[in-house]
């Protein structure tokens, strides 16, 4: 992210110098035609900034940005040329209609897998284009509408040329600053986690659907604003503004410029809008070049030009924030989580079949059973990643059966995964993500994340790349991330897998310390030497049912448990 007061040799500095050069060119040298190209580049930059939020940050491939652009254009075009309404009326309405459409389409599909979102947004684009061509009484049909007035508000008219270019680029600057400010805060971080690992985001208390919907509607606002300004520039509106090349241009600008970066959107727009000017001999085939540029960028430089810039001139490392403990709260003793008759079937397989168990504050419960006995499914049910078919889950006296993962996470359930994957980025950032819904600022979240890392003895890993850590260290960081949630219930899925004996002893001590703080802990584990001394109770599953539960020694000696593990009757 470019900083506001950059060091000149940083990417931000290079971009600031480039921006100043562009400004000087526009103010002093550019011909009327060149100013027009720059103005159109500004329009596309604005549309692409919105696209950076929904696609670059939130990772949802929207194919509707062209449609929002076109709808904004038509609202301004129709109201301006048919009804003579002024800019202060048409501009807000050009933002409102795309926004409403984004809510209506986004609500049903944004919780689904991303390919359904791409389809739904592609559908909007096709339907809106068809409407524009086939409603000639409203839209002027294939010919469109001419005579759209320029920008005029409160008695001031903005004439073509430098004033219009300045107005459009002022909008780009305002929109860009707003987007940059949103991207660098808690909301931007939450979106990138939703993009990189939606499953982890949900278990860290982030409402994935709502975040994606917010990003999508914001992108619609930017698209509508860009479309309105485009029509004020062209003074005519025709179905061209709704055709797929607009969408492709925005996508190409964002990818070539630099995915997720506001500066990338601006850089890409200026560059790609000038491409046809620099290569006049291409004439109508400039879109072939756009296609080639898009393909080349996605293959060779997936983070675009700003990504290349950041690699050539790496920004100085962030100053580490000193860790700070959060205020420990009083935790009620006794039963925290009650599971009664919980069931889940996949097709004909009853993965969890009427399981009843309870977890108590300050106690560690072990969950054992052969592979496929339903341990992970049980954790998925309790943490909300799967919905139970039957039974009840009660948390702190409140029925929470069938709640979504993010709601359960906010209610106090935290978990780790068997695979322990961390998103790309630093370890500190990964743990900071767990505090986004609790702390008021990024700095506070980072300080508390540092504390969580300290508690598992991993503070020194903070600046390292999480995705590149060996599995044993990833598990440790994941545990810190779960602790940062200050959970009432902690569910650990095979936390000791792949650890050495020393590391296991260290891990056991840390888990015991967490439980001593009043947390109800459930540990799934195969290693009995690790598990039995650690836990207060053991529950053994087999075929989705509870085979035995009780004190560790008693369960370990239970003939049925031994038979289930060895697959043979004890002799």
């Amino acid at each position, binding site marked *: 992210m470019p900083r506001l007061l950059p060091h000149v040799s940083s990417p931000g500095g290079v971009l600031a110098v480039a921006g100043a050069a562009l400004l000087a060119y526009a103010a002093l040298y550019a011909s009327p035609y060149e100013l027009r190209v720059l103005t159109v580049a500004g329009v596309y930059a604005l549309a692409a900034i919105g696209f950076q939020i929904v696609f670059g940050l939130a990772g949802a491939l929207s194919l509707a940005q062209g449609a929002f652009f076109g709808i904004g254009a038509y609202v301004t075009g129709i109201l301006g040329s048919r009804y003579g309404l002024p800019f202060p009326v048409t501009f807000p309405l050009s933002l409102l209609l795309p926004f409403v459409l984004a809510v209506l389409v986004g609500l049903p599909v944004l919780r689904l897998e991303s390919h*359904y979102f791409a389809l739904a947004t*592609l559908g909007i684009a096709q339907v809106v284009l068809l409407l524009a061509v086939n409603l000639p009484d409203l839209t002027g049909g294939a010919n469109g509408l001419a005579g759209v007035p320029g920008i005029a508000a409160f008695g001031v008219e903005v004439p073509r040329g430098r004033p219009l270019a300045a107005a459009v680029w002022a909008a780009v600057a305002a929109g860009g600053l707003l987007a940059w400010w949103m991207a660098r805060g808690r909301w931007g971080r939450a979106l990138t986690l939703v993009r990189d690992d939606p499953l982890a985001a949900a278990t860290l208390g982030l409402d994935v659907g709502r975040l994606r919907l917010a990003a999508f509607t914001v992108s619609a606002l930017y698209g509508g604003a860009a479309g309105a300004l485009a029509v004020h520039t062209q003074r005519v509106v025709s179905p061209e503004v709704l055709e797929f090349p607009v969408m492709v241009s925005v996508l190409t600008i964002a990818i070539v410029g630099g995915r997720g970066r506001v500066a990338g959107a601006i850089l890409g727009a200026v560059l790609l809008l000038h491409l046809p000017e620099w290569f006049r001999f291409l004439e109508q085939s400039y879109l072939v070049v756009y296609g080639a540029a898009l393909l080349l960028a996605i293959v060779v430089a997936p983070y675009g030009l700003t990504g290349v810039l950041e690699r050539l001139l790496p920004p100085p490392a962030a100053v580490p924030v000193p860790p700070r403990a959060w205020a420990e709260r009083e935790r009620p003793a006794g039963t925290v989580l009650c599971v009664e008759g919980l069931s889940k079937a996949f097709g004909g397989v009853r993965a969890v079949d009427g399981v009843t168990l309870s977890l108590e504050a300050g106690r560690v419960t072990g969950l054992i059973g052969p592979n496929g006995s339903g341990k992970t499914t049980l954790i998925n049910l309790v943490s909300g990643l799967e919905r139970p078919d039957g039974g009840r889950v009660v948390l702190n006296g409140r029925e929470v059966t069938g709640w979504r993962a993010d709601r359960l996470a906010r209610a106090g359930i935290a978990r780790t995964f068997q695979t322990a994957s961390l998103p790309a980025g630093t370890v500190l950032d990964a743990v900071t993500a767990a505090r986004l819904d609790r702390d008021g600022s990024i700095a506070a979240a980072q300080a508390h994340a540092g504390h969580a890392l300290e508690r598992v003895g991993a503070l020194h890993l903070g600046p390292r790349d999480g995705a590149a850590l060996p599995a044993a260290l990833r598990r440790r960081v994941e545990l810190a991330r779960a602790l940062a949630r200050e959970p009432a219930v902690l569910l650990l899925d095979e936390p000791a897998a792949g650890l050495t004996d020393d590391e296991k002893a260290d891990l056991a001590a840390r888990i015991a310390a967490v439980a001593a703080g009043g947390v109800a802990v459930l540990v799934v584990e195969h290693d009995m030497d690790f598990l039995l001394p650690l836990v207060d109770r053991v529950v053994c599953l087999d075929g989705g049912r509870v085979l035995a539960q009780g004190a560790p020694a008693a369960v370990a000696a239970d003939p049925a448990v031994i038979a289930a593990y060895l697959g043979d009757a004890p002799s």
Partner: protein
Amino acid sequence: MLALQLLLNGIALGAAYALVALGFVLVLNATGAVNFAQGDLVMAGGILAAALAPLLPVPGLLLLPLVLALMAGLGLLLSLAAYLPLRHRPPVAVFISTIAVGIMLQNGVTVLFGPEPRAAPPLLGGGTLDLAGLVVPEQSLAIVAVAALLIGGQQWVFGRTQLGRRLRATAQDPEMARACGVPVTAMVMATFALAAAYAGAAGLLLANQFFVTPTAGGDLILKAYIAVTIGGWGSVPGAVAGALLIALFEVGVSSVLSYPVALGALYVTLLAILVFRPQGLFGEVARRRA
């Protein structure tokens, strides 16, 4: 009688859509990624057939093998340029690279052949048969027969041959297939070739009745995408059934109202299906990763 006529038209259109959707879902299963260029490949096949026709004045049926072969070659190029360099990246990268290839195809064709609509020759003849009062265009019957043959051929290859077993293994679990000695890269390339060839066939079939313009691909990719979604993401028979359903819906609603209304209604129906039955009408095959 009108209903029967519409049914016939719908089935002929659906047969061509089914070829498009089939290519889409085969690539989806083999790579886990959406091939967004599938609609533009159909367009390219149609334009290719229309461009070859004056050079080779033979019925469309004899042009078909040539179009299939040339399009298969294009499919191989597509996999080399837009899939293989991105195979270890998230599926969205392939989505974007195939958008890029689609836009290159679309505009490349416009530059080479111009933007005007073109027609491909009919498969056999342009006449109609009169079956008990029902006007049956020969082309419609030929479309259904050719599509049935091609889809049947795909089912036979996948179900009964060593090549088909390898292709299915690649689609089910590429890592495991590679461990078992299946040449996964070659199989993925073969899948792209097959998908492009079937798209080309669909282009030849559609370009006779409906003409073809360089921008026709956008509408077709949407239809294929919807067909695969309502048929159950990843299901091959579901994709074919979904394509038939869409075509019948489109022909039925268009006959009473108009094509724009039909497309609008199709889209609203799709949104409703996504809300109430996101796994598709027949159930999702591609298991989500947990």
